[in-house]
């Protein structure tokens, strides 16, 4: 596990504008998600999105197969 150079959770100090900061964060998140998807197990998919607490990472797993719980009721 390596600490990334430009981290999605850290504001780059040398970035002059908020837009520049967000662009750097988005690029770092893109890179991280690409790297994780490249080595993900079958049925696992990584993505990211802007959330109320900055960038949020998501990992999706495929449901289904025997033993799946019943669909929820209303």
């Amino acid at each position, binding site marked *: 596990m390596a*600490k990334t150079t430009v981290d999605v959770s850290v504001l780059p100090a040398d970035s002059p504008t908020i837009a520049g900061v967000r662009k750097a964060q988005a690029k770092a998140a893109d890179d991280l998600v690409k790297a994780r998807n490249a080595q993900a197990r079958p049925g696992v998919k990584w993505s990211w999105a802007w959330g109320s607490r900055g960038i949020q990472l998501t*990992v999706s797993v495929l449901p289904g197969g025997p033993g799946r*719980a019943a669909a929820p009721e209303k």
Partner: protein
Amino acid sequence: MSFVPAPGCVRVILAAYAGDGRAYNFIWFHSSGSWTTYDPFLEMTRQEYLNFRLEEWWSYYMTPLQNDATRLIYIRSRLQDVEDRPNVQRDVDLLGALSGATPPNAALVATLRTGFTGRSYRGRFYMGGIPSSWLVTGVPNIIYDAYVADFLDAMAALGGLAPLLWKHVVVSHFADGAERESAVISPVTEYTANARIDSQRRRLRLAT
């Protein structure tokens, strides 16, 4: 609060020493087969096998993420179909691998999603034992994203421990503030987290 049955479900408590207190995690699994029948292939019951696999999971995925003031001490599962089912407990001793402790209530939180909207279909998993070495220098309460990603990787592995035997699920006991007659069970399809350190004060209140 009365007992709300969750047919086919097992509630697991992961208990850890965290600093001077204890921290508990509750996770739920559903199986359409029997949890309690001896399985000659597994050489144990499905419930015992779940505890066994959870020990493996914690050892492989979680101890490398945790500080050395955090130690998992037992895994306790209990069927939730009727009240007064016995606990099935597996005593373990799994110490975090990284130095530098943070307060025991400091946690990363993963939101569990099921593909359905509404509070009944979301859950949370709090992971304490965060090592201070992974906190971003000079930024309070933020942890490096590589750590967050590894945490989510562990959560995805939890969901895929034995997909043919059981599913990691979210269980809802309430609807609009009233107890349900029977719990609603939804398989987890997504784990989401951000880099902010969170705290769950209930974790401290539960400490004994």
